[in-house]
């Protein structure tokens, strides 16, 4: 069995809620746990997607691997090196695509920015020139290479961040929502490049994303973070099978009765129709349906006939739905009037 390239074992991390009184006991009480025992491994060739709601701790996990954060307890290892004690060795193996698009020098050109980071990574002049040319070409940035970074669009900045992370061919590539502003064709090309680079380095990828399709197409495994832990770790294929034919909606309604809820649940094609929360006289309801057999218009008509006022309807992105379905219990039906 091959040793994992990345291994997290029972990692805990809490942050101070805000700057406050400095005596230690009080500060401890103000600490908010973000990671409460995260454990996972990624082997060579592995591509793991980290999913989770905002604030679930995904970026905290990446920063712990990249040595930007020290866990309160637990162990983070990269190729057997402890990320806290052997930070330098770990940084030689890891590259990190930060979510922050500001992480470049705005007065420099794209090429000059890459040259700067190549120097910090100790690349030779020849290697720098070759890598930059290849990466800019593959990421369709060659024509913009000598433009000032301040002239770049958000998508171009993100592609440049990917290029920066790939300057050194890393064993461990960490990516934090790297394609959220990149158009589909450029994203596809970027992913192809990432696959090639990981394969060439016999490396691995840990990807944070909110785009389920991206996770499915790029990653072999998926881990869902919730309440500071890995709530679910499975193969991308099996999670895809669960979500493939689902269509999700979030409805804000008034006057939802138990009878109306039961009628909704019995409607053809509905997989799940459940109350999520109640605020004043409004209820938020989640609807999951098999997209092949479900007629939304008829469903809304039926709901209105049973005395329910539909105030708002919003399509749920699959990731939200998957997380809610997997991680949150519905409000009991007894809560309804």
């Amino acid at each position, binding site marked *: 069995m091959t040793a994992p390239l990345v291994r997290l074992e029972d990692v805990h*991390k809490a*942050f*101070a809620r805000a700057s406050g009184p400095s005596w230690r006991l009080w500060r401890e009480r103000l600490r908010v746990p973000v990671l409460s025992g995260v454990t996972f491994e990624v082997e060579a060739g592995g591509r793991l997607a980290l999913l989770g709601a905002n604030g679930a701790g995904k970026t*905290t996990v990446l*920063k712990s691997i*990249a*040595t*930007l*954060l*020290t866990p*309160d307890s637990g162990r983070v290892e990269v190729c057997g090196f402890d990320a806290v004690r052997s930070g*330098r060795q770990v*940084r*030689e193996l*890891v*590259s*990190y695509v*930060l979510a*922050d698009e*500001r*992480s*470049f*020098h*705005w*007065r*420099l050109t794209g090429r*000059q920015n890459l*040259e*700067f*980071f190549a*120097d*910090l*990574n*100790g690349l030779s002049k020849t290697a720098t020139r070759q890598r930059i040319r290849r990466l800019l070409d593959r990421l369709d940035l060659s024509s913009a290479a000598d433009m*000032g970074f301040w002239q770049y669009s958000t998508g171009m900045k993100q592609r440049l961040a990917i290029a*920066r992370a790939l300057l*050194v061919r890393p064993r461990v590539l960490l990516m934090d929502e790297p394609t959220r502003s990149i158009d589909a064709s450029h994203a596809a090309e970027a992913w192809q490049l990432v696959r090639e680079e990981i394969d060439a380095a016999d490396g691995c990828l840990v990807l944070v994303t909110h785009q389920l399709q991206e996770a499915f197409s790029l990653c072999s495994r998926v881990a869902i973070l919730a309440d500071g832990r890995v709530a679910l770790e499975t193969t991308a294929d099996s999670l895809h099978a669960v979500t493939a034919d689902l269509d999700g909606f979030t409805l804000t309604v008034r006057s939802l009765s138990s009878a109306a809820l039961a009628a909704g649940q019995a409607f053809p094609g509905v997989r799940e129709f459940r109350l999520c929360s109640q605020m004043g006289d409004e209820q938020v309801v989640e609807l999951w349906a098999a997209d092949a057999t479900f007629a939304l218009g008829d469903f809304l008509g039926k709901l209105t006939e049973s005395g329910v006022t539909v105030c708002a309807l919003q399509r749920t992105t699959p990731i939200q739905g998957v997380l809610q379905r997997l991680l949150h219990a519905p409000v009991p039906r007894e809560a309804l009037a």
Partner: protein
Amino acid sequence: MKTLRAFLVRDFRVAWSYRMSFLTQNAGLFFSLLSLKFVGNLFDGSSSPDLAPYGGDYFAFALVGMAVSFLSYPAVKSFAGAVRGSQVTGTFEAMLTTRASAGAIVFSGGAYPILLSAVQLVLAIVIGLVVFGVEVSPDHLLMVGVVLVLTMAALIGLGLLAAAFVVAFKQPEPFSGALLAASLMLSGGLYPPSVLPGWIEAFSPLLPLTHSLELARQLLLEDAARTSLGVHFGALALFALTVPAGLLALRLALSHARRAGSLAQY
């Protein structure tokens, strides 16, 4: 060295992108020296007992004072400024994920302004020599070099302490400004400390720049008296011990920021 080169190239490129400012900087130096020359003309012919140990020429006295003082501001301020600047622009975390060590990143981040000030120091002396006819002794140039290295070490140590404060507390540090203001008043950049009231003058040996200026003048100015050189060298060497203290403080501050998750916060 590669890290240092990367930062020097980066900062030169950024400075060059503001060409007008880059080019007018040195013109400003010339006009500052010209002003000092006119002030010096006021004292021409009068014999001040406070200037006598330095040869009696006020312009030569002030020229050395100004040139050496050039070093103090960037040496004390630039590391903290570089850290804070990179936190604000969002590049600090990106740099810390590279293979360069955190210490090298902070040190190299502040190197360009120091190098620039060293160039201005030399330029000021050359202008003083060539344009204004100041007489400089060539006999002790090597020792002047040692003085400047020790001065840099003493001030860089304080600069690293200031940078550690920025990393640890996520806010501009207040100490270097106070130190520079005190140095301006007490160290004798534009007047000898001996003109200060006795109880204020007593504080001037507590500042590294006082010893640097004293040594630089005694060694450079043709007619200056050379006294207590060993004392001043010893004092500067003591101040230079702040370098390991600064490096240690920076290491502890980075470790604290990694635990607190505040590396990128400002």
